[in-house]
């Protein structure tokens, strides 16, 4: 009966294509391939990639921002540490410098004090010398005049005058050296005035 049906339908081997169908199938698939594969697929692929990039880009940007924030934080921490160290260093330096300045100032003040003392001593010495000088000449002339008046004889002879004055002063100095301290000067002055009675009495 099947063979009868086959004969009735005039059916061919179902594995052999009918050529009009083959051609239509080829053309139709070529069109589908052309539109879907060649026109639409590149467009949607591009969009998919763009979307993926946008999402990945967002994630990447977020990661970058986080890394940047982390980096800046570390930088700040490092800077803070540096600043702390710097401050400590400056403080230590300032302490050292202060000590040095104080020491220098003290040194300078001492030197100044020494200088002033020395110059004062030198001045005192020179004034003492000057006073001694003038005293020597004045006392000499006064004593000579006094003596010449008392003795009545001219002591004009300068050589003799000089000797006399020198002897007199030597005595004075010897007394002064024997008295020593300035407290004893008054006493020696008193004894001297006692010794120089004729001059004082006048």
């Amino acid at each position: 009966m099947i063979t009868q049906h086959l004969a009735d339908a005039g059916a061919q081997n179902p594995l052999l294509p009918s050529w009009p169908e083959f051609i239509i199938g080829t053309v139709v698939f070529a069109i589908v391939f052309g539109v879907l594969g060649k026109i639409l697929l590149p467009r949607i692929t591009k969009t998919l990639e763009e979307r993926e990039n946008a999402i990945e880009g967002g994630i990447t940007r977020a990661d970058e921002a986080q890394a940047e924030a982390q980096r800046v934080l570390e930088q700040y921490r490092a800077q803070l540490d540096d600043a702390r160290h710097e401050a400590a260093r400056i403080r230590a330096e300032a302490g050292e410098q202060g000590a040095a300045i104080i020491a220098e100032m003290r040194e300078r003040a001492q030197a100044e004090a020494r200088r002033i003392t020395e110059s004062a001593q030198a001045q005192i010495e020179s004034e003492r010398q000057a006073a001694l000088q003038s005293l020597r000449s004045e006392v000499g002339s006064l004593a000579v005049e006094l003596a010449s008046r008392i003795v009545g004889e001219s002591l004009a002879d300068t050589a003799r005058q000089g000797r006399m004055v020198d002897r007199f002063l030597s005595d004075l100095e010897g007394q002064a050296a024997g008295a020593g301290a300035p407290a004893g000067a008054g006493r020696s002055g008193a004894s001297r005035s006692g010794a120089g009675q004729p001059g004082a009495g006048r």
Partner: protein
Amino acid sequence: MTGDLAAAAGGCHIFSGCGYPAPGLQNFDFKPLFTIGSFSFTKPMLVAVLVAVVVIAFFWIAFAKPKMIPGKTQSLAELALVQVRDQILRPALGKRGDTYLQLIFPMFFFIFLMNLMELIPLFQFPAMSRIGFVWPLVLIVYGLYWYLGFKAKGFFGYFKGMIPSGVPAFILIILIPVEVLKYLIVQPFTLGVRLFANMFAGHLLLTIFMIATWYMMSLSIGLLFAAGSLFMVFFVFLLELLVDLLQAFIFTTLTATYIADSLETAH
């Protein structure tokens, strides 16, 4: 509908004295819808053209102006495309095979809809059960398969690559013809016939149970058998839904596998 069935049954009914009109090859031959000269436009051709129009229209609406934030149609189409890419193409070819998506992607949806026409009312015919629509696809796949193989390994290197190394000479005498036969005839033949036969058988099954339902329907015990047959129609309908998808999947998966096979330098 009933008229169609009656026509398919050849006007036979259980009590009209003739036997069950088993469907056969004649159910796959159609009278031309119109004829231009010697060219006859038949129902399978109409189905093929409609499928092409539907596939192109859908993906054109979805992908012609793709947006970064997709609408409903674009989302659905993207989902389908990404599924084809991730489930069919990439397992075989990996990311480097994305170039071949331009073949696999149209091929999958073309075959799937051609198959699905089996279940769409008014058409109810899988165009892929006409092998004239299958062989062009097989030829395209094998054209590409051989082209890539020759390009990757050279013409002679390609044939050399068919022969496994480290096999004794006397086995090679058997192995070489088998391998050559496998690559040149068996693989393309089975690739095409698998798709064709599945669709052919599916359509035949549906037809058998539909005609049987109609044939046995009467106010008698036959009504029970008719109900059983109708249940089988629904069952086979669901089964065919699966088979339609599966065959499109298998055809494209094998295509991807063959392409990967061609691209591999060492066999």
